[in-house]
């Protein structure tokens, strides 16, 4: 049922740290310890290098694509304490903006839902989170949350945009008042939820405590039209929690343990339609999880790294040999 349809040779000279598909699945961005960010056109099973972007002075940890309504924009963050925003203009990719407001490695970048505008959240080892908002004419406004997490912030993830119920038909030109929220995970073993106040300042709204070691990643699930909010978190303590909040009450988040792994869990990520959670562990596996009716999370598949030929799950007539 599952098979490899393309293998992209990035030619990175050192460890790859992140790979992200753009909104439509036509382009792939990768970043590496070799300090470069590369962009490939991967349509129809091909791989054409479009850009090899240099600008960082240390390993690049993450890349993130902005929504296509803002153009072709990619953000990257690095050990060199910088966040760079790259833009495609007249067919070529160039550095559009550099943000150097952190005192140590920037570990995570995440674009806000397009409804809010062009806003980038960045989490850093200096414990701070900065929010860059594009205000036009090449200008970016910076807001900084200092000491968001003691020791360091490892991950940031935005809540999906929820259209406020009272505003059904907006008169043209007027922006609806979205309540902007995002989650962050840090070395203080906490997950924090942040909310933008009316005065434009960011305030800590909630602390989610359950992990006993550094939180390595947080992922807010996409909305599927139900009133519940869901966040996945993973940690150095080997645990993955699924946090849910029934929006009717507003502020009670309850954790459910997905699984306790034997090793550090580094990365969690939701599929686009929010029904499958992927978990990358300290071993060579990536496991896929889905929720069942009694609230239990069930592992449905695993993707293993190993030697030898590629084989898909065993079904009649679907053996792919490489």
């Amino acid at each position, binding site marked *: *049922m*599952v*098979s*490899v349809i*393309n*293998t*992209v*040779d*990035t030619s*990175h000279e050192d*460890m790859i740290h*992140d*790979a*992200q*598909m753009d909104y*439509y*699945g*036509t382009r*792939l961005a990768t970043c590496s*310890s*070799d300090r470069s960010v590369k962009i490939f056109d991967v349509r129809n099973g091909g791989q054409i290098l479009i850009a090899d972007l240099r600008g960082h002075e*240390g*390993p690049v*940890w993450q890349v993130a694509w902005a*929504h*296509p*309504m803002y*153009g072709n924009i990619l953000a990257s963050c690095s*050990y060199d304490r910088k966040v760079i925003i790259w833009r495609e203009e*007249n067919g070529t990719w160039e550095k559009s903006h550099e943000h150097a407001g952190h005192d140590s490695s920037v570990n995570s970048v995440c674009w806000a839902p397009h409804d809010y505008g062009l806003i980038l959240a960045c989490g850093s080892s200096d414990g701070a989170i900065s929010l860059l908002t594009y205000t036009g004419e090449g200008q970016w406004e910076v807001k900084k949350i200092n000491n968001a997490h003691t020791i360091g912030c490892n991950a940031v993830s935005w809540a999906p945009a929820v*259209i406020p119920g009272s505003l059904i038909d907006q008169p043209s*030109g007027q922006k609806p008042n979205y309540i902007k929220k995002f989650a962050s995970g840090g070395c203080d073993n906490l997950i924090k939820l942040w909310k933008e106040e009316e005065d434009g300042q960011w305030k800590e709204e909630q602390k989610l405590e359950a992990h006993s070691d550094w939180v390595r990643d947080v992922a807010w699930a996409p909305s*599927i039209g139900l009133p519940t909010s869901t966040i996945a978190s993973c940690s150095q303590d080997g645990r993955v929690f699924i946090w849910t909040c029934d929006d009717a009450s507003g502020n009670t988040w309850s954790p459910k343990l997905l699984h306790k792994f034997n090793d550090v869990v580094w*990365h969690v*990520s*939701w599929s686009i*339609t929010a*029904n499958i959670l*992927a978990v*990358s562990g*300290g071993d060579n596996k990536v496991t896929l999880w*889905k929720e*069942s*009716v*009694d609230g239990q999370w*069930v592992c449905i598949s*695993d*993707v*293993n*790294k*190993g*030697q030898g*030929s590629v*084989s*898909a799950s*065993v*079904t*009649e*007539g*679907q053996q792919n040999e490489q």
Partner: protein
Amino acid sequence: MGFHQFGQACLELLTLDDLPTLLIPGVNSKKHQMCFDWGPGEMLVCETSFNKKEKSEMVPSCPFIYIIRKDVDVYSQVLRKLFNESHGIFVGLQRIEEELTGKSRKSQLVRVSKNYRSVIRACMEEMHQVAIAAKDPASGRQFSSQVSILSAMELIWNLCEILFIEVAPAGPLLLHLLDWVRLHVCEVDSLSADVLGSENPSKHESFWNLPGNTQTLTELELKWQHWHEECERYLQDCTFASNPHLESLCKIMLGDEAALLEQKELLSNWYHFLVTRLLYSNPTVKPIDLQYYAQSSLDLFLGGESSPEPLDNILMAAFEFDIHQVIKECSIALSNWWFVAHLTDLLDHCKLLQSHNLYFGSNMREFLLLEYASGLFAHPSLWQLGVDYFDYCPELGRVSLELHIERIPLNTEQKALKVLRICEQRQMTEQVRSICKILAMKAVRNNRLGSALSWSIRAKDAAFATLVSDRFLRDYCERGCFSDLDLIDNLGPAMMLSDRLTFLGKYREFHRVYGEKRFADAASLLLSLMTSQIAPRSFWMTLLTDALPLLEQKQVIFSAEQTYELMQCLEDLTSGKPVHGGSDTQQCQDDDIETTKVEMLRLALARNLARAIVREGSLEGS
């Protein structure tokens, strides 16, 4: 009813003792891990080291990114027909649901089932041709195996049609099963033909000639009993003792299992054995008894030498009338959701899922349709079929469609319009807005301002409309003419979207009116543009310069009052101007031009004022 209930369905379908595992080739190092992310329709996997260190590792790393997809069948050329045609049948079935009543309901549903099967057969035929014509043996084999799969699908579907949809009662059930076996067993073995062709089949045929047959089941059963007893008597009387062949035949006709199994190589499989056995031992078998015969047939046929294959399990589940098990086994055995999605939907229309006491009955249907439709969205053109499937999923169809449709690459204008039409038909306003904004941005970057403007208007995006209008105005200043006049001339109420856009529209109107020599109207319009504050200040000079030809006309166009207002505007404009440093020659020249313009305007305005006062004075007098 919510999302979580689907989970139960999938728990049933997807939880396996042996997890499906995909192995990725790569440097198998203990130091490295595997990184993973989702694309809109695929997954990305690569080797990484999560332990972020500044210094690079000495251990070589793998530079490959693997892109993984499920539902790759969607790309098969031959299966395309299957997907397209079954889509038509599916949609037709949903639409006639309302009209399916009473006695004709069953026959209509059977007809739909037969339609599906004929589509499978057609696809099988085509695939078979492709397999024969294949250039290399490996792909030939692959196509052939696809043919077997399609054949198995048709076999299963056919059986389900007989048992679940047709619901053949005792008696005719065996006839249907006979047809079923005959259709699918390719070899026509000689002895079985003999057996069937010997003395009694003619009697059989007259018994079973159902159309117009007025005999009741009991009468038939009696006749059969009578014949059966006669056979038994012959055997006991050793009538055939001299001829072992005939004796064996007689035993077979009495349904003697051992005798039948002796001819095992002529029976291709256990269900062939089952039906043959039933034919001779219990032709009026009732549906509920079927499973016992089925199980023992399977056991006897395999004889402990081999174990049942997935197909066997599926068929057995059908004989046991366990629909749920059939669906579950099929989901596991088959590589895509096509089969289970369509069959389950049909069975749901037969009201079978509820009656089988699955509390998530129709949820199962929706779950499978959602999975199938999602798979279609991976394809550059089949996604359009997926839209209809989502439409008929009342719970999560809409939200699934919203999520998927936004991710369709808008490579061409045509495709974009198609996507938009689909969204507009379903009042998916957020998606419409978002798509229009994306297209507007694309157009601006490609310098297609007219296109950008119409997309902004459609998106009701005031900010963007302002941006594009500014570009238009800038272009006008540089080139002295407008592009996309048609668009601007026919803005209509859309003009009100943003001030800048309104100004653009009105300014163009001014030019048009002037061109038609309606000078008085042009003059008032021009003045209103300046006094209403919708003109950006940077444009005022241009507007005043536009006023010049009107001021220079033979007849007086601007009234005295209007002239005063113009003068006021000019003074406002010039008083705000800073004094330039004068070091730059170009700047000096610009300043000179500016100054000259202002002087000219002042002169023209003054002259006009004079003439206007005189004219108004005279008119008032008369």
